């Protein structure tokens, strides 16, 4: 019987080979339409031949569509990834999986190959908070699926790689000024008209000042270059109308709950005028000389926590700008390439990262504070991370089978600490500070072997072993098969695994009132298998893929039994009398499968460009508490984007339209909030229009202008004091969306102006 079972497979293989022999090589237009990616294999290759499904967002697309932040780029232009905004830092998901409250630590974010996920919690930001000067971006590679085989921890949902421009593409000095505004909405989400009271005052307003400089030069006979980008963005507002939520009494005082000087006792809600703000300064410097490269990046991301939402804080005074978060990053990256022989290339890579995080929260409600601070309290959490690492890579080219071997050894040392201080509003009384400190190291050898025994066949096998003091050993394999069965066609079959190391925060965090530090916390794991077929015809590309992934050991909180609590009290880890105590544990599992499809094309000599990306998935989570599996909350299951742009004529603007969509998403408190009806955000549809170009009357001056409108009114996050249903509040309130906004930007290139003056 086994022989017959093998028959279909053999037929398929024979047919593929037969077709392959007749296959025509791709046309020049098809070849030029391919993207060059460096993420899947740590080396340049086309996206068609790479052992991963990826999409590339170009600087030209960013300009055409008026894209001004990483989340906009992901939502409007990428395949398979989408963000969700609780109105402070966006959350990111891929292929139907989004881990609510993960601070982006299931996606690896790289800038020119340097990982930006910080050492304390693995956090990365996928919006303006990414902290990369936007005009310095050459392209963004979005790789879907597990990527730990070369990158280790965090690369579970995928890898986003921002590649910055080389000096030749950013020559000279450029200055950019940009402004934006957001129209305020009423409590029901309806947009307010200009005639409404205080409309001008209630508008949201932001501005960006940026500059970049690039220069090529010769240093000691070596071709060298330098690029520098500086960027500052600030935004306030708009005014938001939220609530009212009849919360009721403070269970400690028995009086209506105090929501601070801008709140109403016992009722959460009103007008948020001061509590929505954002500041992001960022700088990036890159230098190269010959085969030596150095990069230095610094950024800060300061944003307010406009309202309690269960992600940042579950309670806070109303409309209080004191409630905020900030992150600061400093990253250094050095590398030297050595051509050791005609077959061996070595890359020595060193990196260092400094990071700190601050969270501030203020509440006057006694029930939100420790017993001894019943007149209100301020909380300040500080996290610090430092890491230092080195990587040695050897690339061996073999004379047979067009084989190449990548051998690598990654070693990293990290130190993190955190401290939570709680004090009275006067600052005179303090609760005992809580904190922790930890130093960890990892050593990770990896190998990736590729073979191309025929022009139509590519094989890629890889394996990485992470030995990490946080959890022990973890293997991350990947195998990929690529076949070109006919001209312009490509079939891929990929199996990969990835993991996320438990963060030092998850390992060490404890609260004597509510949480015990985790014991024996292991890495989260994902296994994924996917297949895709791609067809290029001229300047058109069609992709269709199926995927399935299994997630296990996901970190969640596990409720402790009375016996465990008693033991914790006996050890002095918990205060006496506590009844609800949790602990981080590897409890959850996710089962996910679906399809994705993409179409890109161009017509009219490339002046008209269009594209469509669609993902449809089913993701269910098993909480590990014996209950049945449930649809994953917050994560969009069907989502995507569509776009078109047209270059009218050289002296005219390029006009562009894009839309993004997603299906209904369950809110983050869908299962544990007790609300009725079960809270969910309705389907999302957002439309974006942009025009960009240069002014022929003013050489060197470019402009872009655009607007964005969202038909949806809310995102799937329960906001306000009532994070759980109570006698007074049975219906959840969800986070509002900025529904209508516009922007205008001007860019002046001194180099372009000089060129125009020299060659009128």
């Amino acid at each position: 019987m086994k022989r017959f079972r093998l028959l279909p497979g053999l037929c398929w293989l024979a047919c593929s080979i037969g077709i392959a022999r007749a296959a025509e090589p791709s046309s020049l237009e098809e070849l030029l339409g391919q993207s060059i990616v460096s993420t899947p294999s740590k080396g340049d290759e086309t996206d068609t031949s790479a052992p991963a499904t990826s999409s590339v967002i170009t600087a030209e697309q960013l300009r055409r569509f008026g894209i001004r932040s990483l989340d906009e780029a992901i939502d409007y232009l990428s395949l398979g990834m989408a963000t969700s905004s609780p109105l402070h830092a966006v959350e990111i998901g891929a292929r139907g999986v989004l881990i609510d409250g993960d601070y982006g630590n299931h996606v690896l974010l790289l800038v020119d190959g340097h990982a930006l996920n910080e050492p304390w919690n693995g956090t990365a930001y996928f919006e303006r908070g990414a902290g990369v000067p936007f005009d310095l971006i050459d392209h963004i590679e979005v790789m879907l699926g597990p990527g730990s085989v070369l990158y280790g921890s965090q690369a579970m949902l995928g890898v986003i790689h921002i590649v910055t421009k080389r000096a030749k593409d950013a020559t000279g000095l450029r200055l950019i000024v940009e402004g934006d505004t957001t129209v305020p909405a009423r409590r029901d989400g309806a947009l307010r008209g200009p005639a409404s009271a205080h409309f001008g005052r209630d508008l949201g307003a932001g501005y960006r000042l940026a500059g970049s400089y690039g220069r090529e030069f010769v240093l000691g006979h070596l071709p060298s270059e330098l690029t520098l980008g500086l960027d500052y963005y600030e935004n306030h507002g708009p005014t938001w109308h939220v609530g009212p939520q009849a919360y009721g009494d403070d269970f400690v005082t028995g009086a209506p709950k105090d929501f601070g000087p801008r709140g109403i006792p016992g009722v959460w809600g009103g007008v948020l005028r001061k509590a929505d703000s954002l500041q992001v300064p960022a700088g990036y410097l890159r230098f190269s000389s010959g085969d030596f490269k150095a990069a230095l990046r610094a950024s800060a991301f300061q944003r307010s926590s406009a309202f309690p939402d269960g992600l940042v804080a579950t309670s806070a005074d109303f409309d209080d700008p004191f409630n905020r978060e900030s992150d600061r990053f400093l990253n250094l990256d050095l590398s030297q390439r050595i051509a050791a022989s005609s077959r061996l290339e070595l890359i020595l890579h060193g990196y260092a990262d400094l990071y700190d995080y601050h969270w501030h929260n203020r509440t006057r409600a006694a029930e939100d504070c420790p017993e001894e601070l019943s007149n209100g309290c301020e909380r300040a959490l500080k996290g610090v991370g430092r890491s230092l690492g080195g990587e040695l890579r050897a690339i061996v080219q073999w004379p047979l089978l067009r084989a190449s071997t990548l051998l690598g050894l990654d070693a990293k040392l990290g130190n993190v600490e955190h401290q939570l201080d709680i004090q009275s509003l006067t600052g005179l009384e303090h609760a005992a500070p809580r904190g922790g400190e930890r130093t960890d190291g990892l050593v990770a050898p990896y190998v990736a072997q590729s073979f191309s025994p025929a022009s139509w066949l590519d094989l890629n096998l890889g394996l990485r072993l992470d030995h990490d003091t946080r959890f022990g050993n973890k293997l991350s394999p990947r195998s990929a098969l690529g076949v070109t069965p006919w001209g312009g066609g490509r079939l891929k079959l990929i199996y990969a695994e990835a993991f996320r190391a438990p963060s030092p925060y998850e390992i060490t965090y404890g609260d004597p009132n509510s949480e015990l530090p985790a014991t024996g916390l292991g890495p989260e794991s994902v296994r994924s298998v996917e297949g895709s077929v791609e067809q290029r015809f001229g300047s058109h590309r069609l992709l269709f893929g199926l995927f399935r992934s299994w997630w296990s050991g996901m970190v969640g909180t596990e409720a402790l039994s009375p016996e465990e609590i008693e033991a914790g009290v006996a050890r002095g880890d918990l205060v006496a009398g506590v009844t609800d105590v949790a602990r981080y544990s590897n409890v959850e599992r996710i089962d996910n499968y679906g399809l994705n499809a993409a179409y890109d094309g161009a017509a009219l000599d490339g002046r008209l460009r269009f594209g469509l990306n669609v993902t449809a998935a089913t993701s269910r989570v098993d909480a590990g508490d014996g209950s049945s599996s449930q649809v994953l909350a917050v994560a969009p299951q069907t989502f995507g984007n569509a776009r078109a742009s047209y270059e009218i004529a050289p002296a005219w603007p390029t006009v562009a339209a894009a839309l993004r969509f997603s299906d209904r998403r369950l809110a983050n408190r869908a299962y544990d909030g007790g609300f009725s009806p079960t809270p969910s955000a309705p389907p999302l549809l957002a439309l974006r229009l942009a025009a960009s170009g240069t002014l022929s009357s003013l050489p060197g001056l470019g402009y872009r202008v655009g607007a964005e409108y969202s038909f949806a009114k809310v995102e799937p996050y329960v906001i306000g004091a009532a994070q759980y249903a109570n006698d007074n509040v049975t219906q959840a309130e969800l986070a509002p969306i900025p529904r209508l906004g516009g922007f205008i930007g001007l860019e002046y290139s001194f180099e372009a102006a000089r060129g125009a003056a020299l060659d009128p």
Partner: protein
Amino acid sequence: MRLQAALLARAVEYDRAFAARARARVLVFILVRPEDSDSVRVGEQIRLELGAIAQIGGLPHSEEIVPYGSARELAERIAKQAPAILYLSAGLGANVEPIARALEGLSILSVGVSASYVAKGAVLGFDAESGRPQLLVHLGQARRQQVEFRSEFLKLAKVSQ
């Protein structure tokens, strides 16, 4: 390298003089600096990649690694063996200008591994911008080396004089 090889194999189809230059079989010279490991490595790689392509410009082909001595020696060898394509490997940046001068009047398509070679006199070169491959053509040098690209090819390339 694979993409460069594929682009090169397609690009020559747009050269009106290519068939006459190549005759029955395309000979590709791959010029390397033997004392430069990187140059030899890149040369070997492009040889492997070209070798995996069935035809270049619709013709069978063979590749030969040629160590660089001087521009004059190279020109003499080209005149004698009549290759249709000269691929300039890595590490030859400082030699491209004298090579370009020596090739004037000969019928050969010179191809540079990087964009900087085109500025110095290679007829065809490769680059990447915004994650997309780019072809670069030095039109003046193309005329001097009897390379006649069709206008539809020049529309797809970045052309300099």
